[in-house]
């Protein structure tokens, strides 16, 4: 038997023992073990080690285990009831990915609404104020406009000219 082949079998011997090999691999390893005494010995040691591991039956729960757990469970129930009281039942029963999607959508909605509040509101003017704004430049030239009619009246202009000449 070549060393490479023995190494390859050694790598698969544990899976062979667990019945985790394909039919072809199983046949190959089984055939090798029948012919190679060294690998066969390794395999026997492995089965022996697994048998010893299986001897470890473990422990039984201590007498206080159940009581302690029930106490913790009661506390948990109270905590969950308090938490769940604030969340509508239909949300509690949604699968986790849907709840995440809902939470994201709600957060986005809050951000959009918050943004809308920050935009300055337009100021609405009454008709008087609108008129005033439109004629603001006229208001500034009020003194000129006040005498506008007078300046266009030729009688007054003539009278003023005569007055100037006389003086």
């Amino acid at each position, binding site marked *: 038997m070549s060393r490479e082949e023995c190494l390859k079998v050694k790598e698969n011997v544990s899976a062979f023992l667990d019945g985790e090999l394909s039919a072809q691999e199983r046949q190959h390893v089984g055939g090798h073990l029948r012919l190679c005494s060294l690998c066969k010995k390794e395999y026997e040691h492995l089965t022996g080690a697994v048998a010893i*591991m299986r001897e470890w039956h473990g*422990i039984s729960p201590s007498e206080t285990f159940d009581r302690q757990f029930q106490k913790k469970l009661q506390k948990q129930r109270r905590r969950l009831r308090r938490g769940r009281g604030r969340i509508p039942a239909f949300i509690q029963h949604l699968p986790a990915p849907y709840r995440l999607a809902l939470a994201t959508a709600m957060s986005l909605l809050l951000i959009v609404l918050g943004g809308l509040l920050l935009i300055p509101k337009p100021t609405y003017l009454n008709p008087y104020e609108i008129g005033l704004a439109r004629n603001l430049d006229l208001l500034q030239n009020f003194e000129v406009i006040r005498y506008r009619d007078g300046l266009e009246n030729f009688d007054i202009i003539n009278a003023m000219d005569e007055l100037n000449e006389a003086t």
Partner: protein
Amino acid sequence: MFKDPDVELMVRFQKGDEEAFQRLFNKHKRGIINFIYRFCQDRGVAEELAQEVFLRIYESAHQYRPTAKFSSWIFRIATNICLNELRKAEYQAKIRTSSPSGQSRWEGDSELEDRSRQSAHSLLETKERRERLRRAITKLPERQRIALILNIYYDFSYREIAEQIGCPEGTVKTLIHRSKEAIKQAIMPTLE
């Protein structure tokens, strides 16, 4: 309706049947305690973390989907708790104080003594083998330890273990091969 009776119990619990949860707890508590106990080899810590596993099931019942075996789901939770919680200083300190090096004991030995009709010599051999095995399991890297325990004591397939640990099936094959080799080397002197 469901092939796995535990899945049926879990679905009933999801609908609010607390008794179904208690039945699941009673059925699986020993298995979960021993899974964690074999991993950390401290009874107190194992029981505390096993309770944590069931509290997590109670809390996250709504997330459970009856697509896989219930035992796969519960052991996935237990694996996560083992890997995450036991790294915390709080538990590390508990494990150190409860089993100081050289004085560690294998719980279950008393059981062996009671029911054994073995001679004093073979009893001593068995005890030595167990002590070697215990030490060898403690020395294994975490993922090798988890894979080995799930494989030897709970008969999970490599595919199921891969799901529980969160790695490819080929990796599980390697983890189990290496862990068994390490254990074999450790207890070899008692095998010959």
